């Protein structure tokens, strides 16, 4: 059980790494956004796991239940999810404008055009 407690964290870390790798390696702007979202979602999972109490239950008061998981991380992540989707929406609308103005969403092609202008 003790070991399992750490396995969870390491899986989250691998998830974060894959999101971050996708973000760094992609040249396509939409793919970068997808990678960033994966990265953030994995961070959210990590956060939520910190509030989990073994044998705890959902933090909604119910008769007959004594121990609840800590609701604080839940509130933080609610906020963080909203912030995440807000920046995703902004990023995607920037991509749409970039596509309109440059005709491409590949980083290399955009850079090449910027150097020329």
């Amino acid at each position, binding site marked *: 059980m003790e070991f*399992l*407690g*750490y*396995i*969870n*964290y390491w*899986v989250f*870390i*691998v*998830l974060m*790494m*894959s*999101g*971050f790798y*996708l973000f*760094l*390696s*992609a040249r396509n702007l*939409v793919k970068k*956004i*997808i*990678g960033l*979202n*994966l990265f953030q*979602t*994995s961070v959210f*999972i990590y956060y*939520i*796991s910190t*509030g*989990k*109490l*073994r044998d705890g239950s*959902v933090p*909604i*008061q119910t008769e007959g239940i004594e121990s*609840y*998981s*800590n*609701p*604080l*991380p*839940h*509130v*933080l*992540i*609610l*906020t963080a*999810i*909203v912030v995440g*989707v807000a*920046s*995703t*929406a*902004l990023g*995607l*609308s920037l*991509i*749409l404008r970039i596509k309109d103005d440059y005709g491409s969403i590949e980083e*290399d092609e955009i850079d090449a055009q910027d150097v020329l202008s």
Partner: protein
Amino acid sequence: MGVAIDIILLLFLLSIAFAACVTRNLFSAAMLFGIFSLISATLFVVLDAVDVAMTEAAVGTGVSTILILITLASTGYRVSPRPAGRQVLALAVSVVLGATMVYGTLDMPSLGSPDAPVHTHPIAQYYTEVSPVEMGIPNMVTPLLASYRGYDTLGETAVVFTAGIGVLALIGRRRRKDPLPIVEEFREGGANRHRVLRVISKQLIPPILLYACYVQAHGDFGPGGGFQAGVIFASGLMLFMLLFGVEHARRIIRPVVLEKLIALGLLIYGGVGLVNILQGGAFLDYRTLAHDPQHGLHYGILTIELGVGITVAAVITTIIYSFASHLRDHVMQRTLRLRQGADAAQTSPESGA
């Protein structure tokens, strides 16, 4: 049993993340992200975070994925191959990131350990034991979100507001004096198309909107609240827009009205805080709203949740409208161009002869 579910979900997540890294197709990467969100929402339920699960399912799987798909529809699915050197560099940086984090986990309390500082710190007891008594609200997330850390939520609403204004400023359609020539078939969104879908969705949309109101009002007792309600409400409108065309939807709820609603929600929230100051309390101290502090808290929480709900619903609808209108203009221009090209191809041999 819980452990088995946990392990299966983690395996799912790992394979999805791997597939997303490997795939060359942007469409499948976007879909994989949506599935990743959905599975992580399930994991949130296992980890006792039902409110978060609801939000992640609505936002990650719903809104984010749809936004990515609409973007892809106008940018195309093509991905040029990545240079190998960059991939190696990216891998190295991610490994450094992972190594730092693994180093950080070494001294962490294990998952769910009751001795962890997160559970032994007095505020944890406060939130789970004092709060239900003090507030009279069974769902501990709601008072924490709306009152103890209500200022964070005000900030969160401001972030949503910023995103709405930002999307409008970036791709919002300005009221043109000379509108694009509308291709005839686009005018009514194709009245005969998707008959089955339309019939079914017409039955679904009212329950969705009703459910949004339920989630809005029921946040004190079960999972839910202003944010989730706003997203669900917006997704009902989104469904309508998908089937009946964005022009039709824009006629029913005008973008100008939405713009005002975005501002109104944030103002309601902040206004409650200012009223509290005028009543002699601290900013967002709802206890000043009524003679009985607990009643005041209830009034305050209901009002600010309403503000959050209005802003979120209006912002998400605005964002979807803007994206869809942008795409519609894009497709229409392309159709016009294609048609002109076809006309030119038809006329050119004659003129040549």
